[in-house]
């Protein structure tokens, strides 16, 4: 198992290098630092000197891959590629355009992101699975068809619509909770309860429908039929036989997301002004702060790869037949 994890981590390295190269090409070769400077400083009334100053200030004034002016190892380290891309591997993200250290910003903002994303995730799974099981109890009946119709309808509504309308009716008209904001600590729940509820409800359509198909697949198999023949009640069949057997596909879809919860939710956080990583990224996109976007792309890929490894490990826990080697 340990050896397997080490090997998987080694596989991750070429992928991360690929991600790194891709972002490097996107950010430094497709658009040169001069283009970026121009975009930042305004297109027309900008002097050549101002551009050069901006580039020097951000540390983009070095050659891309190879620095002939320097000597020794400096020839490779004194380049944009080393300074801006290779250093990401050490989680050294550099400074944002405002001059703040990106890494400490990221660490600060993970907390609020998790406070929103983790409950949404856990409650969401719990609600989806319960709803799917409940519907499955009435499989083939009119209620089942009605429920599926409701799921498809809920899926077809834009995520933004849930947020806009939910915020409007619950927070603005009914004034049950604050419209937006965030508070550290336990009394921050008042700010979080609405975004969590909206996140869970907007996910029911697609989620419950997916779990329902998984459960139907499992409940059509021989072991479920045998259990019914033995006289196990329908609820017993669902909980004792169908649910554990549907665990593998559920884990495939679910575990991979867990590390990415740190990244937060872009839209939810900005609508409810929660100072997490999602709104951090959104602000960076809108301010065209490429250093932050680059750092977040890298961080996101790292978290995704960790998620993949966790998925494999969770298989051995859910299904004793699976051996990792």
């Amino acid at each position: 198992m340990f050896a397997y994890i080490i090997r998987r981590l080694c596989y991750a390295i070429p992928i991360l290098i690929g991600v790194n190269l891709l972002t490097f090409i996107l950010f430094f070769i497709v658009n040169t630092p001069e283009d970026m400077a121009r975009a930042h400083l305004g297109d027309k009334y900008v002097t050549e000197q101002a551009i050069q100053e901006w580039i020097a200030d951000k540390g983009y004034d070095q050659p891309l891959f190879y620095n002939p002016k320097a000597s020794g190892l400096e020839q490779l380290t004194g380049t944009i590629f080393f300074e801006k891309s290779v250093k990401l591997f050490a989680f050294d993200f550099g400074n944002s355009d405002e001059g703040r250290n990106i890494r400490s910003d990221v660490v600060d903002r993970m907390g609020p992101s998790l406070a929103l994303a983790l409950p949404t995730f856990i409650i969401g799974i719990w609600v989806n699975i319960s709803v799917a099981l409940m519907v499955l109890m009435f499989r083939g009946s009119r209620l089942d068809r009605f429920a599926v119709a409701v799921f498809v309808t809920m899926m077809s509504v834009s995520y933004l619509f849930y947020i806009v309308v939910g915020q409007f009716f619950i927070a603005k008209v009914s004034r049950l909770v604050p419209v937006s904001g965030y508070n550290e600590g336990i009394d921050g729940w008042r700010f979080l309860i609405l975004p969590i509820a909206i996140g869970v409800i907007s996910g029911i359509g697609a989620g419950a429908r997916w779990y329902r198909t998984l459960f139907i697949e499992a409940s059509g198999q021989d072991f479920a039929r045998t259990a019914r023949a033995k006289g196990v009640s329908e609820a017993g069949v669902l909980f004792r036989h169908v649910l554990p057997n549907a665990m593998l596909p559920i884990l495939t879809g679910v575990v991979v997301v867990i590390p990415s919860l740190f990244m937060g939710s872009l839209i939810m956080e900005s609508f409810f002004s929660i100072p997490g990583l999602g709104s951090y990224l959104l602000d960076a996109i809108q301010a065209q702060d490429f250093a932050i976007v680059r750092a977040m792309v890298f961080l996101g890929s790292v978290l995704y790869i960790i998620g993949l490894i966790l998925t494999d490990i969770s298989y051995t826990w859910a299904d004793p037949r699976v051996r990792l080697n």
Partner: protein
Amino acid sequence: MDFSIGSDLFGYHVLWTILWSDILIFFLVGAITLFLISLRKNPENRQRWRQVFSTRLGMSTFVIIMAYIAIALGDSIHFRKALPAVEDQGSEQIFYSNTVNSLLDLALGEMGEQHERTYSAPFALKSWNKENLLLPGGERVRDYPVLKYGGQHLKNDEDKQRDIALYSLLGLGKGLALALLLISLHARWLKKRSKSSEPTLPWRAGWITFAIIMALLGWLITLGNLYHVLGTDQAGNDTLYESLKGIRTGVLIGTLATLITMPIAISLGIAAGYFKGWIDDVVQYIYTTLISIPGLLLIAASVLLFQVWINNNPDFFEVGLEKADAKFLALCFILGITSWTSLCRLLRAETLKISQLDYVQAAHAFGVSHFQVIRRHILPNLSHIIIISFVLDFSALVLAEAVLSYIGVGVDPAMASWGNMINMASTELSREPSIWWNLSGAFFLMFVLVLSVNLFSDLVNDAFDPKTQLEAA
């Protein structure tokens, strides 16, 4: 690209304007039609499509989707109208307007040109905000100004209810009459070529849906030219018109994004599964790398960079719409790049499976070339995966457009889109009293499209997925 042929359209002098996305959408619709026709030859595929259309739901949703596509295509034929001649202008010389119109604009009549100053409520006669008005006597009052267009044909404000009812009946009648005419033509055509061997499809469901859509369109167009049926937005544009224009953006995002990159996904997926070895390794490496970048981030980064490129190269685009169009195509391409990976993975796995089968081995033994094996034996057996993934992706892409527009990396604000409208609505709702109509128009049209596509794709999935086929057997 501008050019003029014959240049007459219903008596107008026009200059046809062709955008890149117009070319692509017509090319793709043609390609899909050819693809489906070629599938018809195969009796098994015929049977599957028949299964989709043998349900009333399949028929109705298909008609709705086709209506959307027809509107989108009508909105994809662009031209610039000639300006009325000025006095000292030479007789041969014609100047063309800078605004680009489409066939849809013609069908909607004056709806798109009736700009008010700012917000007004649905069917309102007066503006939503009070303004300082200068009375003819030179006196200043603060009151709601009368709208320039909305309901200005009325002689008397009290007649409004009756007038609306009258024109509603007229519009519904016009739409229904046209629908009935087309339906009866279709019914007669069906009768002529009916074969007793094949069970009849539930045409009635399709006809009823068609009649409802036509009646609704007739109603909206008739009333939309007299009133602002869904009010106006902040800039005074008719909300109904804007939401109808959003159809093109939604449909194009849904189709172009998948189809632009589909050749890449298909060729790489088949190559990886068929040739195996180092090709497989390379393809797997490429898609694992792309998958591991969070989709939204990759899209945001790429769109941002493209925006920088456009801003630094403004000379490439003649009209404002062309710039918006280039941005839009780039967005489609980027969305496609982030979504082709899953299709590629599926195709690779299926090709691996198929290339082990006996008939492929037999073809190899007979010395059939690789290209022919792929074309004759592998590609036809992958078509169901391609169809299913195309319809499943469609609705997700339409929904994604709204989210991307909110983040600020979606379509150009100059282009009408449901995403942009919903985003504006979030601040408009919090005004006092709140402005809800901007949200409702975009929401309703988007919801109907996505719901129909979701329902239709479920049926397609049931019919084409071998797994569900086995269960049913």
